[in-house]
């Protein structure tokens, strides 16, 4: 049972929780004076979090290669699209 909790999955969860705290603080002025830079960083962090959920929790890391490629491609496309649209404002 111990090895179930002291695992890579738990490490990823802790990293995701920490990243959420960091992006929340960024929304409250931590790290960036310009809200556009903060917003870009927050979107980037959210896409990285999503990638980890897909690869580790959804286990796409061990799925057939075409599934992993589609997932990786989607995270890049949605990340670029959202940052581009955000910076248009």
């Amino acid at each position, binding site marked *: 049972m111990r090895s179930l909790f002291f695992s890579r999955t738990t490490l990823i969860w802790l990293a995701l929780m920490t990243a959420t705290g960091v992006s929340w603080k960024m929304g409250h002025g931590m790290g960036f004076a310009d809200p556009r830079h903060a917003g870009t960083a*927050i979107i980037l*962090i959210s896409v990285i979090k*999503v990638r980890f959920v897909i690869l580790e*929790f959804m286990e796409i890391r061990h799925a057939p290669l075409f599934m992993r490629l589609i997932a990786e491609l989607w995270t890049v496309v949605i990340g670029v699209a959202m940052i581009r649209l955000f910076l248009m404002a």
Partner: protein
Amino acid sequence: MTTVPLLARPAAPARRIPGEGGIWLFISGEVVMFSLLFCIFLLYRERELDVFASSHAHLNQSLGMFNTLLMLSSSWLVALAVQAARRNLNRATPLLLLLAFMCGAGFGIVKMIEYSEKIRAGMTLTTNDFFMYYFMFTGIHLMHVILGMAVLAFLVRATWSGKVSGSTLRNLESGASFWHLVDLLWIILFALFYPIK
């Protein structure tokens, strides 16, 4: 007798699709739909930046953050439940799923508190485009949470009394994949609606 070199790398696990193939078609469709919604939100934000910025200030940041932590934790618990089932930790699987279900219920309760706060303050679907998207997108997501909770409840029942294998394990993997989808969609919704000014 065969000898194994001490420094031999462990064999990589065989590549396989978790759960039923059909669930991945469904997940792909949902991802495409939500991707469009995310882009639509950002497009309208660009057109009405002042309205979006002033409306955003009314959202309860702490509740949004708390819900994200609940969603991430439920996803982690479900991932552990799948691993427990594969290791034949039969008692752990339904308990982990039950905890994940409770996190989902907590998420729903917090969302209801948020909605009632907004409605009491006179902010509804018809107030402006920001609140229209806020209620619409988070409402669609909440429906997914409720559906996911029904799936988790089914899985708790299916795994409660014995060894998880065969079709039950595949159903568990499929249900888990759906729940992780609900989590990942919220991660982006949280970023777009809460911390970004």
